[in-house]
């Protein structure tokens, strides 16, 4: 088994030099097995979105990796996922076909890959498979095949034509909206709607949040994921020059109020649902907020086993574990400090976060957004002010509504 290398992580003292794994184990902490397998089935993309963390931020490792997985790597992925399910007796796991643009790998390749994974899993383990795409290549035959093979489709869309095409463009500068519109029309067809997983929208504070949300609603998404653009203390968010404004919270609060006040729930918004759940004492289901252990692992086209790819926004090699499916089981990655740091809840938070009354709700925010070159990932989120305002707002709305109920009682 290959020993994880720490060489790439010299710019992140925490967790790579300062997290005491032996002490954690001595205290009884045990890792959470991976349940989400993000498979980079194609390294390139047919779009050139200006905020993409894969191509425009710190880590440029895509340049040196093969465009697609070799047969040897693909077979190893199948074997390692089945091995992990068996080792940890997993009854359920999720496979996310990702890229780049995964449809560039070709549909026959994707279908045979998924079939091989499902066949290799233990009989008691069920795999939920999703493909995250920019939608440009979603022809009707493709959608029909994905539906027939129980592969759900998530599509990225940032609002209406003008707003979407400001960022999500082809390499020649053409916008992608019209192609995505066609894809979403197909996914709304009753014959194919069972394959429709939802929309992923990266927010831009220059866009009207209500208009954006209502445009997304026109495509009847079962779920919407609103994402903050990846940023950190070295690469600051746009429009947050002085660090005191909360343009992202302003945007999200407006969208939340529009969504929350609807007399009938119009769609699911994972970030908002997580915040409500956490306010009510429940758990989060995403890595954006809350302190639930992150159980996501990524496999690149060369077989490299990596941490969540959003870390590419931090520094070159930030995702690295030093492991590869050709030589290592996924379980080996559970001992990598960067993976452990995502599974220890409040132990991964800095002092100022622990002193904050809402830290169990925001969870310190997205891990990638905490990075500071001098000390690594044990910092408040670069979106801290925005998160606090959003959490306070959601908590205020929910508790006010509950307190107005006739027999409502909460402290």
């Amino acid at each position, binding site marked *: 088994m290959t020993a994880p290398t720490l060489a790439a992580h010299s710019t992140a003292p925490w967790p790579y030099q300062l997290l005491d794994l032996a002490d954690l184990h001595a205290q009884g902490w045990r890792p*959470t097995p991976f349940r989400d397998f993000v498979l980079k089935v194609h390294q390139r993309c047919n779009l050139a979105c200006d905020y993409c963390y894969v191509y425009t931020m710190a880590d440029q490792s895509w340049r040196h990796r093969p465009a697609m997985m070799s047969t040897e790597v693909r077979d190893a992925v199948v074997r390692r996922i089945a091995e992990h399910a068996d080792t940890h007796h997993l009854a359920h796991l999720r496979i996310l076909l990702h890229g780049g643009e995964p449809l560039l790998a070709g549909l026959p390749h994707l279908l045979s890959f998924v079939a091989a994974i499902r066949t290799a899993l233990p009989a008691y383990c069920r795999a939920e498979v999703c493909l995250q795409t920019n939608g440009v290549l979603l022809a009707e035959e493709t959608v029909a095949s994905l539906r027939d093979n129980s592969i759900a489709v998530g599509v990225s869309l940032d609002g209406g034509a003008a707003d979407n095409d400001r960022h999500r463009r082809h390499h020649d500068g053409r916008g992608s909206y019209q192609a995505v519109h066609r894809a979403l029309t197909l996914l709304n067809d009753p014959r194919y709607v069972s394959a429709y997983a939802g929309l992923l929208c990266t927010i831009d504070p220059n866009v009207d949040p209500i208009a954006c949300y209502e445009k997304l609603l026109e495509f009847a998404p079962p779920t919407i994921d609103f994402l903050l653009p990846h940023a950190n203390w070295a690469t600051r968010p746009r429009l947050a020059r002085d660090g005191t404004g909360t343009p992202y919270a302003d945007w999200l609060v407006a969208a939340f109020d529009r969504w929350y006040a609807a007399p009938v729930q119009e769609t699911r918004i994972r970030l908002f649902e997580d915040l409500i759940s956490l306010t009510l004492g*429940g758990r989060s289901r995403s890595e954006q907020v809350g302190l*639930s252990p992150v159980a996501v692992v990524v496999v690149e086209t060369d077989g490299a086993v990596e941490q969540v790819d959003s870390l590419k926004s931090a520094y070159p090699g930030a995702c690295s574990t030093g492991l590869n499916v050709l030589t290592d089981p996924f379980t080996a990655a559970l001992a990598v400090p960067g993976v452990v740091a995502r599974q220890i*809840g409040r132990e991964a938070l800095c002092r100022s976060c622990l002193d904050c009354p809402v830290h169990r709700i925001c969870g310190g925010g997205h891990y990638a957004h905490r990075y500071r070159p001098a000390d690594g990932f044990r910092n408040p989120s670069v979106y801290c002010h925005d998160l606090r305002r959003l959490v306070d707002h959601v908590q205020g709305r929910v508790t006010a509504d509950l307190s107005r109920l006739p027999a409502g009682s909460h402290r």
Partner: protein
Amino acid sequence: MDKIAGSQGSGEEQEWDLVDVTKLPLPDLLRSDNTVLANSLRRLLAEMEHPEEIIAAHGSSPQDISRH
């Protein structure tokens, strides 16, 4: 409800104004329209280890949880 895995289950004092769902008028909420708040409570109950105990105490039925 079941504790959240990892160090969240440390038993330490909750710092924020945590809502006690066991003291809410759940029958009214769960029978209400398909609102964000009602659906959030349904999901919360669905994630508990023994939601039927809370539901039964309020006179609701398990079907009320799975409406959404």
